[in-house]
């Protein structure tokens, strides 16, 4: 494409039926104790 560069394709809406296994890290425990950030966490299934 000439005018648009895609940095990241669709990812959130993939495999949504498999979502929610709950094995991932609790988000406030990696570094933040006062402000939530979950988008940087790893999925345990990947």
């Amino acid at each position, binding site marked *: 494409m000439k005018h*648009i*560069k895609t940095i990241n394709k669709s990812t959130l*809406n993939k495999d949504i039926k498999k979502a*929610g296994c*709950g094995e*991932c890290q609790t988000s406030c425990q990696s570094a933040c104790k006062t*402000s939530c*950030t979950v988008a940087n966490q790893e999925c345990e299934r990947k």
Partner: protein
Amino acid sequence: MAAAILVLQFMLKQQVNFMIHSFKIHGTNMVLDVMSGAVHQFDDIAYDVLGCYERNGVLNNDKIKNLSQYKEAEINEAIEEIEYLKKKNMLFTEDPYTEMLPAWTKQTVVKALCLHIAHDCNLRCSYCFAGTGEYMGRRSLMSLEVGKRAIDFLIENSGNRRNLEVDFFGGEPLMNFEVVKRIVEYARVRENKTGKNFRFTITTNVMLLDEDKQNYINENMHNVVLSLDGRKEVNDAVRKRIDGTGSYDRILPLAKKMAEERGEQQYYIRGTFTRKNLDFGADVLHMADLGFEQISVEPVVAAKDSGLDIREEDLDTVCNEYERLAKEYVERRKNGQWFNFFHFMIDLEGGPCIAKRMRGCGSGTEYLAVTPEGELYPCHQFVGHEEFLLGNIYDGLNQNTVREAFRETNVYTKPRCSSCWAKFYCSGGCAANAWKFNNDIRIPYEIECELEKKRVECALWIKAQESN
């Protein structure tokens, strides 16, 4: 409950089917397709053409006529590219999640505990939310007996979850380190018998760190959070010893050694910024200059008008500082001075699933705090507030209805979040902040929201720069 979810689903289908967020940073036009997570960089023509689309993804031909500065052929190319992305579900993607809400909001298990190993501290930090360690109670240390029972409670309440987390927190956990070690030993024995996998973390002010403690932590803790606020004058103005003197000179060499011996991985040097240092980017860069590679500096959670709290009138300054830091971050990483800033980390391809993004940190449900006496609270920030007492490790969870409120709270049940573009990145923000500032865990703290949105924008911009 089921009826409420059906009504909610209907409302959401009417309101927020499509959502994009477009923004500019340092002259770059960025576009996020909220529902799919697709991220794009637009040139000026495409960006202006996108501005002629309605919220539902339909082109408004009247608006297009106003783009007289561009050639018709260029406009048509841009429209063609936007329509292509729409067809590929990478722009104006419809919300596919509302039908999954019942499955993702069902009763869950406990998988993480924050153990308040010491309700005592050897520092007197001005902004401490824990009342310099006391949490509105008395100074006390967790006994080994309480710690062991907490491990058993976690195993008993974790259902089929294999990965369990325990964070040693305080106050200052190094003040009760022998108990920390014995709890770890006990958990290792229990995990062998139960098939669980414990991950331990410790959050420390470093003051009591010595070689033995360091070695033990490096051998046994999955992650360690070391507190330092950045520049000496900034740190020492707020992170003071009991005698009022600063802590920087004591902390720095110990924290440096710890970071180096962990191979600059699985740790954070973590600072807090207040309205006294809104130029906190300088503190981030100071710690990077010192050689730390894993850095987190976060806005203070302080009472309104405490003199330290970030206020609405500070937002422009703080947001500009994040943008300045993002630019310097990209430059340094490109030029061999790599470091990681926690709030600019974003995993676009392998991040958490959408169910996790909806629910956030899990406080009050998956994640609980345990006091030295064995009481349970939704998280460390709620400890000492009796209305949030959820039971204790001996008798289990009580019938406090607040637990149900935590379980039902997600980015779709919070009105402000459901219409926000950043909801799948902040997951609704911190419940404790919401309660402290708005007296309701469902109403997010707006200043936190604005800062989080800016950090996500910076993180997406950084991704675009580093992909070039």
